[in-house]
């Protein structure tokens, strides 16, 4: 249905896509796979008319097309849902879905927006997605996962032939993913071609009919899932064999751990905040990786924000290195050696128009204060050190961070905090939206840092990751601590704690 042949794209001197092909057939779900910076997002932006191609042809139903703008490609029948929710939080659900093409009522020049019709049609669309929300609700009041589904509803509301989903599931939990897949299967049956980008391998095998792999801007191959089992898919993406799950290494690390010192690095006693987190006790020791598991909204992120002074804690005590503290501003936490990589990379993490270098030195400079200023030469040196260490793909450290791909932005944020040489590193969903190899590198890096004595609080909704990396696991449920498990706990044990109904 949609054929892209020999697509190349250059930005200045950098070749981002080199002779890439992609064949989408009607009635199939096609997974587009590749590491961060492999060119997936660029390819999608070409299909949707955001960027013109440098070379190559696009054809829809056999006829050549050259979408000049996202609107243009939408008119051609190519609808897209982007990775980050791109809707207006201050408008209602219905307004978001119809923004730019509101149904009209009336005659001639006096056409008013047909509000009731808009609400009616929105409700019908949402029903298709099994989404039970009020179309007149303001979008910003809904959880991110629901906003993501609204974005998909918006894409579906246009009569699309091709639906492109760029990491639609990265902010959804399992049941939401399943209901999304049900919808996708329905759409596939109705003859839509669906292009699906994700980093979750299990999802690829759960839904896709065909897989195209890109690597370093080049086309690697096209397979059916049966032809390409998971390990082969990973090596196709990475170009080498990846050692998955390094549990033994972690065990060795546990053995080599320095003896527990008397005072834990962080000690929480009855720590919490009204209406945010029920009081809980927690000890984080030197060189320990503590995993925090739990569902969306279980209080994982809230706990991290309280610890870091982003929200005020009004219950219990927090002691850092034995000293009781009360943070009212993150700057105080940073001063005591805490670091926090937030979950919402775009809104709480990166400073988009500043360079990679400036983003990396920001926290260190904030801790140093206004004076003395880290000289540009030293900044460049620091930035380069972490670009090399974490393998950040950036042409140079002076390019704006907004131009990096999502995973590389995540790494740059990690670099920002590593540069402050923190004693406690809080990572909130650090692996969201980054590819398998980068995930593994990031986790190896975390384990290495823990070996050197850094204490890590590792928050993730992916239980296998938490199991693999943690010395101990805290499970959160309904904004309280549901329990604590030692290393070697099984996924089932964690799941039990997560799901155990509060009534039991």
């Amino acid at each position: 249905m949609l054929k892209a042949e020999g697509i190349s794209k250059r930005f200045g001197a950098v070749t981002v896509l080199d002779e890439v092909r992609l064949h989408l057939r009607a009635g199939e779900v096609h997974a587009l796979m590749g590491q961060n910076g492999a060119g997936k997002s660029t390819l999608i932006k070409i299909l949707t008319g955001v960027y013109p191609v440098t070379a190559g042809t696009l054809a829809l139903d056999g006829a050549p097309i050259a979408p000049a703008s996202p609107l243009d490609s939408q008119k051609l029948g190519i609808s897209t849902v982007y990775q980050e929710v791109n809707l207006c939080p201050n408008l209602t659900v219905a307004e978001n879905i119809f923004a730019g093409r509101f149904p009209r009522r009336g005659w001639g020049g006096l056409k008013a927006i047909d509000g009731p019709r808009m609400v009616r049609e929105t409700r019908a669309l949402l029903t298709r997605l099994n989404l039970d929300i009020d179309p007149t609700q303001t979008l910003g009041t809904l959880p991110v996962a629901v906003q993501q589904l609204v974005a998909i509803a918006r894409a579906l509301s246009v009569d699309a032939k091709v639906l492109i989903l760029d990491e639609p599931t990265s902010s959804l939990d399992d049941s939401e993913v399943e209901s999304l897949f049900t919808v996708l299967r329905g759409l596939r049956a109705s003859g839509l071609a669906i292009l699906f980008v994700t980093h979750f391998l299990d999802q690829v095998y759960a839904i896709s009919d065909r897989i195209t792999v890109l690597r370093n801007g080049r086309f690697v191959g096209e397979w059916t899932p049966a032809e390409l089992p998971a390990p082969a898919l990973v090596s196709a993406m990475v170009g080498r064999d990846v050692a998955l799950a390094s549990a033994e290494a972690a065990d060795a690390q546990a053995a080599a751990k320095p003896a527990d010192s008397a005072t834990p690095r962080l000690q929480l006693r009855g720590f919490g905040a009204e209406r945010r987190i029920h009081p809980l006790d927690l000890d984080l020791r030197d060189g320990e990786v503590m995993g925090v598991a739990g569902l969306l909204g279980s209080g994982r992120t809230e706990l991290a924000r309280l610890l870091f002074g982003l929200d005020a804690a009004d219950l219990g005590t927090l002691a850092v290195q034995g000293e009781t503290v009360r943070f009212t501003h993150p700057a105080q936490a940073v001063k005591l050696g805490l670091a926090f990589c937030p979950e919402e990379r775009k809104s709480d993490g990166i400073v988009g128009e500043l360079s990679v270098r400036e983003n990396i030195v920001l926290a260190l400079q904030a801790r140093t204060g206004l004076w003395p200023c880290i000289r540009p030469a030293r900044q460049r040196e620091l930035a380069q050190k972490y670009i090399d260490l974490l393998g950040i793909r950036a042409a140079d450290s002076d390019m704006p961070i907004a131009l990096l791909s999502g995973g590389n932005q995540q790494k740059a944020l990690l670099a920002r905090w590593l540069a402050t040489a923190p004693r406690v590193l809080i990572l909130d969903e650090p692996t969201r939206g980054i590819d398998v190899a980068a995930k593994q590198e990031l986790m190896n890096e975390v384990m290495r840092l823990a070996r050197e004595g850094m204490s890590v609080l590792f928050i993730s909704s992916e239980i296998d990751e938490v199991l693999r990396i943690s010395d101990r696991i805290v499970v959160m449920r309904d904004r309280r601590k549901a329990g604590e498990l030692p290393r070697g706990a099984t996924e089932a044990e964690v799941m039990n704690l997560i799901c155990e109904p509060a009534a039991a």
Partner: protein
Amino acid sequence: MTTAHEMNASPPRPAPQLPPPESLWLRTSRHPLVWPLVTLALILAVNASLNPGLWHLEWRNGHLYGSLIDIVNRAAPLAIVALGLTLVIATRGIDISVGAVVAISGAVAALMIGGDLKIVDGQPVHISHWPLPVALLVALVAAAACGAWNGLLVARAGLQPIIATLIMMLAGRGAAQLLTSGQIITIYYPPYFVIGNGFFLGVPVAALIALAVWLGMTLLLDRSALGLFIQAIGINPRAARVAGVRARTITICVYAFCGLCAGVAGLIVSSNVKSADGNNAGVLMELDAILAVTVGGTLLTGGRFTLAGTVIGALIIQTLTSTIYAIGVPPEINLVVKAVVVFAVMLLQSPEFRRQVRALAFRGGAR
């Protein structure tokens, strides 16, 4: 280091092609200060063609004298206000109360100095009510306090900057009128006149003050991390806070500094006219200052900013005003003329507009 590289880029990317050597013209045209400078040159050229005496400089009574000196001298208060405003705008804010603060600072100074002519030992001597340094200090502190109040409303109370400073614009103007009882207070104390009329080494003192403010700010921003923090706050305040930047404190300080700058400008203005006018001093100055900042190349959306651009912007606005007076545009249409020129300047500075013009020109050429 090498391992990290190898791990990540297993098949080496195709060797990057060298970018085509950029022409000097292209590189220059991208420098942020080029278009403001071109604009300034254009306006000066127009002025010169209508007023041949523009370039004439002479040494008279021990100081420089000429139209250019006059422009620089008159641009000084505007430049100082606009420099302070640049930082506020960089934090994604705006301050429309600077004109009112100019009036307040002038009024406070005038009230505290006043000036009497007394005969001491048979000699006429001018006496101020309070010692001059005290009067200047109090006026500046009052101005900085107005700015700090704006900052508090913005950073602590969470008011939108335009609303917070709109309140100060009205309240401050009211306070200035109250202080002067709605009259023009004349100052009789010659030492005070030096600020707005004096010369040092042949150069106007006001221009030297503006230069000092500019250099002082440049030095401060270069030697400290303030510039980085202000930009981070302007681009993404939440991220700046998470990174440990004291965003609120810095915001309040920036507004206070902007007030202080307006206070300095107020002293220059009142010293220049040897009086304080609560009703008219600094009226519409906030708009000229915002124009100066924007014409200079700082975006109102916050983030990246340029102090040098702002100074050039202030010179552009003042040259324009002087030109309009010099060529005898009737007073009733001079605002219209100014608006048209500013409009043209803004178009000239818009990369999008320039791109369209280029495209048009090329199409025309191909035909």
